């Protein structure tokens, strides 16, 4: 099965953590403000629907708040927001690992490959295999770079409709086709008899509600759940269709690419950020996980750029800019954004790009798939969480755009290979003698 381009790129772009001020999005807020009250679950709290996902318009008024106060608030809220990211990342990984361990479909190697990894890995020759995996990586990364550049170009020339259409097409595919495949495999594993009419109804409802929640409005929790589910589905597809060694090399390469694309002055992602800032408009509501709970206390109109999402509060350091061009599409970008308003006691929560979710889950899923050793999976899981924590910390210190993938993926890879090769024999010997350390 060859997945479409849009799928590939969709996850790709969603992986970076950019910290910088994000432009205000008056137009967006205006649309959704009106409908928000219906979604209020508590009196003063309104969940932010996906439409509002926009990187909370954060203004550049950092200078207005005194440094000390800012720092304190940073650390005070930092921990809370780190946890708000830990939970969804953990959930996504749990879903992926649970599926990998129970449904054998995703660990069976098929002869089909994605068109992005055309070189076959020959298990007989180590050198050839290594070479082919590097070639596969080069192909994959070039596709990603190409897509990012197309995105930047499209964005620069204001072809918003194209981007939107692309986006909708990819989420359609994820929500209908991939979930259909997934359900089919789960039913096969557990030998559940299911007829087509019921299945069609289930998938139809799932898909339509998903499209509405993600692209339009919906309860926050439902939207979060859908985003986690589609990230998990995407990660599972990668785990299945990427050849063994290529997957590891691709993981490494994509974190390097993330680093370059976000930090270099001519990097596509950075250019995207700057363009969006110049135009003072939000990037498209890509698939970004948002844990925001917006408390609109006495705020009449959050679409007013002046008061909206007021000051940039340097909280806990995850200030990322909503770079997400088009959700599913383009190459790189899940940007994580994180903003908070001080003014009206608003807590906009944290946003994390889905690409990050996907790659973290791919790493942990592959650790679970190969070998069947739970220690390795657990080690990778802890490593990724710590990487995420460190990334947030760095963001708080440096206060500029930083990519979200590199630290976590590096830790994850280091821990995967070392736990698999060094710790596993040690722990196995200990367990067989029942020695406890």
């Amino acid at each position: 099965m060859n997945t479409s381009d849009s799928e590939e790129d969709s996850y790709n772009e969603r992986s970076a953590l950019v910290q910088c001020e994000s432009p205000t999005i008056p137009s967006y807020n205006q649309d959704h403000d009106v409908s928000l009250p219906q979604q209020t679950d508590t009196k003063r709290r309104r969940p932010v629907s996906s439409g509002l996902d926009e990187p909370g318009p954060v203004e550049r008024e950092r200078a207005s708040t005194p440094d000390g106060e800012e720092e304190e608030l940073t650390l005070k809220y930092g921990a809370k927001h780190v946890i708000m990211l830990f939970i969804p990342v953990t959930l996504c990984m749990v879903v992926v690992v649970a599926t990998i361990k129970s449904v054998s479909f995703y660990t069976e190697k098929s002869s089909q490959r994605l068109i992005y990894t055309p070189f076959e890995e020959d298990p007989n020759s180590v050198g050839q295999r290594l070479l082919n995996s590097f070639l596969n990586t080069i192909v994959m990364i070039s596709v990603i770079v190409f897509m990012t550049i197309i995105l930047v170009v499209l964005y620069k020339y204001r072809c918003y409709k194209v981007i939107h259409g692309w986006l909708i097409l990819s989420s359609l595919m994820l929500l209908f086709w991939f979930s259909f495949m997934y359900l089919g495999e789960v039913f096969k594993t557990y030998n559940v008899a299911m007829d087509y009419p019921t299945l069609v109804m289930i998938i139809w409802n799932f898909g339509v509600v998903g499209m509405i929640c993600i692209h339009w409005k919906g309860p926050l929790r439902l939207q979060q759940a859908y985003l986690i589910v589609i990230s998990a589905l995407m990660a599972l597809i990668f785990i299945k269709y990427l050849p063994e060694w290529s997957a590891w090399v691709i993981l490494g390469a994509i974190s390097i690419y993330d680093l370059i694309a976000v930090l270099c002055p001519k990097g596509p992602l950075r250019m995207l950020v700057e363009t969006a800032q110049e135009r003072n408009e939000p990037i498209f509501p890509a698939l970004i996980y948002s844990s925001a709970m917006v408390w609109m206390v006495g705020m009449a109109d959050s679409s007013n750029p002046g008061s909206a999402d007021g000051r940039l509060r340097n909280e806990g350091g995850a200030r990322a800019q909503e770079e997400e061009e088009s959700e599913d599409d383009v190459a790189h970008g899940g940007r994580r954004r994180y903003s908070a308003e001080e003014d009206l006691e608003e807590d906009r929560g944290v946003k994390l790009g889905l690409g990050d979710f996907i790659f973290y889950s791919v790493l942990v899923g592959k650790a679970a798939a190969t070998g069947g050793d739970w220690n390795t999976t657990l080690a990778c899981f802890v490593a990724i969480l710590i990487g995420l924590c460190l990334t947030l910390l760095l963001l708080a210190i440096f206060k500029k755009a930083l990519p979200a993938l590199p630290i976590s993926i590096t830790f994850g890879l280091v821990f995967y290979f070392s736990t698999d090769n060094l710790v596993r024999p040690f722990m196995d010997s200990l367990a067989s003698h029942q020695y406890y350390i």
Partner: protein
Amino acid sequence: MTVAVFFGCAFIAFGPAFSLFVFTIARDPLRVIILIAGAFFWLLSLLLSSLVWFISIKASNSQDLRLQRDLLIFGVFFSVLLQEVFRFAYYRLLRKATEGLAAISDEDTSAISVRQMAYVAGLGFGIMSGAFSMINVLSDSLGPGTVGIFGDSQYYFITAALMTLALTLLHTFWGVLFFEGCEKSRWWVIAAVVSLHLLVAGLVMFPLDAAGELHITRASHYCFTFIHTARVI
């Protein structure tokens, strides 16, 4: 070897740790982060000690079982020492972090006290240590098989679960004691914690070793050497 065994052993091994987590740690995000960082530090210590053990294994004759067994014992003691070193390192890190927090905060008291951090860090170490010892055993217990069919003890799973429980709680207590000792600069407390850890690791080796005497003497020899060294240091 059934689901009952799986759940029974899982709850024995992780029940208290899990309840401690749910009731005391889950609500406070800062504690959760300290817990996970503690687990990470334990993992690092395990990684380094496995590296040392692995190198020693590769450098030695793999046919000599006696030597392999001795190297494993050495690995255990080295790992214990390294864990304590990393506990100390974690203590230093946490102190620096709270000092930083206190310096910039307007409030007089910091968000979390050293005692609380000690408890959380100890629990982090304990949970990770327990998880690494027990998880593979648990997943094997879910599948088909008979315990002790080749003459080993039938009580493998239950003893593993109980040992894991003991070690998790011990790590928590050691964490509290250790940090307290570091805070008040009472080095004998630290030495006691290290010796106790070594003692526990050493004790576990005795009863299950059927071919025992020589190994017991060897193990106690290592044990006392290390304790002595620890005291000297």
